[in-house]
């Protein structure tokens, strides 16, 4: 049940709002002066904005994994965490869209994408699938919310303090009576959405990987990229759900609903996905490294032993190796260690996205020449950091506010399923 923020909650909220404001301030600065407030230059023309975008798209894929794939597979244990997954998906994909606009040199010309859009450009594909995914995700968040809204409406009815909330709940769901017909329609709708979201989810991240793979550049010119991105996305998404589940369980005291079983199962999933992602990484790096073609050589060496080696190995070890080690043991799948492993997965994944974007751009085919020294390196500027963190804080803010207004686990479905289980037992 949603409840007002306590002291900790208020503090958390303030921090998020402050970081968001900082990001907004940096963006206004960028609008005034142009992209020169970033450290992006002609060689490193994409930086942490784009890696942040890829990260958001990746993490949003989890909505489809937990809600759709597992639901279709009949894994009922995941019901209490579907809403967590879905709100992560919605907030992440919204910010993915925003970040793309932030990265544009002329954001005010965004409408050109619609009046002059050309279907052959992967950017247009991305715009199309991301907006579709956003709509489906919102629906998948909203439809299962309907029965819960009825409960909320009843609860807030006689509470004068919650008049505004009551009005909002009524606006969103007063038409819901819970009649068998409505139930049937909604269930049918959810099923259809679950099926459609799977190909759309695969497309958003495949297309995002094609933004890179459709170019000639060393490190991007790979036929492996779609699968590589999707496996990575499922991994970071599950990691994020594990973290969020732990936090919500702790704060809202949901120990009765979210049990060790959930962490155990999520942990197993993360191990499997980390293994899968590791497998694709081996393919991505080892095969080219075996051949060491000239254009790839500089790029790979910069990752393995050069400028980026520190964060590269950090991302591999923190993002995959250690989480696997933690989570293969039954002890590691207890809530707290699982939470730690989840954090590592998410942090590692964020860095990994950066490593996918920037080192490639700093290893062009023709040597970097005839440019100022600063063009040959890339260290994100304060404005980029502020905007990147601002967007991350913004996504967390949406999740936080959502949890304040709506029940974070689907009450109706969870009760319903618990009920079914009980009757089965008897």
């Amino acid at each position, binding site marked *: 049940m949603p409840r007002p923020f306590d002291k900790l909650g208020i503090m958390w909220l303030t921090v998020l709002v402050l970081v968001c404001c900082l990001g907004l301030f940096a963006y206004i600065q960028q609008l005034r002066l142009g992209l020169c407030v970033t450290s992006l230059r002609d060689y490193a023309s994409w930086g942490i904005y784009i890696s942040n975008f890829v990260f958001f798209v990746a993490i949003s894929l989890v909505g489809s994994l937990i809600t759709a794939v597992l639901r279709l597979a009949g894994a009922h244990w995941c019901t209490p965490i579907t809403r967590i997954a879905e709100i992560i998906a919605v907030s992440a994909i919204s910010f993915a869209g925003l970040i793309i606009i932030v990265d544009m040199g002329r954001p005010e010309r965004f409408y050109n994408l619609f009046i*002059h859009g050309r279907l052959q*450009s992967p950017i247009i594909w991305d*715009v199309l699938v991301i907006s579709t995914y956003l709509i489906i995700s919102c629906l998948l968040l909203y439809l299962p919310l309907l029965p819960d809204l009825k409960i909320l409406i009843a609860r807030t009815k006689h509470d004068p303090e919650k008049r505004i909330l009551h009005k909002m709940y009524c606006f969103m769901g007063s038409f819901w009576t819970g009649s068998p017909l409505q139930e049937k329609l909604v269930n049918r709708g959810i099923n259809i959405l679950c099926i459609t979201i799977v190909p759309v989810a695969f497309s958003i991240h495949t297309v995002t990987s094609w933004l890179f793979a459709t170019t000639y550049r060393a490190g991007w010119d790979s036929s492996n990229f779609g699968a590589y991105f999707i496996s990575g996305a499922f991994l970071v998404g599950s990691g994020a759900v594990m973290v969020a589940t732990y936090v919500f369980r702790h704060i809202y005291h949901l120990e009765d609903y979210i049990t060790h079983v959930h962490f155990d199962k999520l942990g197993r999933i993360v191990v499997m996905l980390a293994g899968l992602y590791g497998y694709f990484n081996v393919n991505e790096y080892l095969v080219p490294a075996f051949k060491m073609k000239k254009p790839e050589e500089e790029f790979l060496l910069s990752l393995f032993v050069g400028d980026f080696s520190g964060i590269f190995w950090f991302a591999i070890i923190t993002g995959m190796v250690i989480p696997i080690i933690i989570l293969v043991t039954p002890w590691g799948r207890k809530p707290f260690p699982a939470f730690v492993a989840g954090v590592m997965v998410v942090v590692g994944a964020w860095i990994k996205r950066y490593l996918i974007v920037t080192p490639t751009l700093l290893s062009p085919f*023709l040597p970097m020449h005839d440019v100022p020294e600063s063009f040959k390196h890339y260290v994100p500027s304060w404005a980029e950091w502020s905007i990147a963190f601002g967007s991350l804080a913004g996504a967390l803010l949406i999740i936080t506010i959502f949890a304040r207004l709506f029940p974070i686990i689907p009450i109706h479905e969870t009760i319903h399923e618990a009920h079914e289980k009980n009757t089965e037992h008897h």
Partner: protein
Amino acid sequence: MSENSTSRKQFLAALVTAGLAVTGCSTKKENPFEGVSGEGGPTGKKVKLLSVDGEIVEMDSSCLKPVPDIPPVSNDRERVGIDGKKFVMVIDLARCKAVKNCQKMCNAAHQMHSGQNWIHVYPMKESENGAPFWQPTNCMHCDAPPCVKVCPVDATFKREDGIVLIDNTRCVGCRFCMAACPYSARIFNWNKPEITEEEACKPYSCESSTPQRLGTVGKCDFCPDMYRQNKLPHCVTGCPNGVYFFGDLNEDSVTNGAESFRFSDLIKDKAGYRLMEELGTKPSVYYLPPVNRNFPFEKGLPTSEKS
């Protein structure tokens, strides 16, 4: 007057290059230039002009008004290109000693930011034991341009005359084309362009790529604006060593201003090649190999690096 003996063709060419435009053009009316004569009244100096009907008419020179710019070509026509042309460039690596005057002229003509260039002059070496040489590189104006494929809004486009241009009034600044270009030919206007208010107010032309605009991408445009004025691109005229040859594939001729060659002969005789042929981009810029070089490589090094 010598003008009287000028042939019609030369006369027309002279008219165009002088940047003059006739303010009215019909011989049917009694005096078509009544009321349009410039300040100061008739000068008594007669000028011969070709009317739209193909007749030669004689005018008082005060009837002619110089126009500051060649009348602008509309955006639609700029997107189609110059009829019947297929522009090519040949860069003779044997002649280059990194004077970089090409770069200087190009930068001045295209309002470049300090530090950014459309033309890069790379010190290259094919293999460890190979000889070093200088390689100027600009936009390759590929016939299968990767940048055009990825542009989401058709701000980068391929024209019928082979030129790849950018429309800075449409570019959204996504920089996908920069990532797609294997030749690193593209630069971005990260800062406000360093131009005067007056320059910034001039009408934009894709063919001259000016005035530059904040937040949009830029690159070598093969100077079709110069071609329309019967001139060669800035780099070609700027190079003291005649490295750059510019011309038309349909006419099979290229020139660096001083010398002209048959394009096909030049490529055949000197074994011309294109950069990164294996990528399938089909560039319009050809290179002549750096054999029998006119200058030792060291000549091109900045004084501080010369040993």
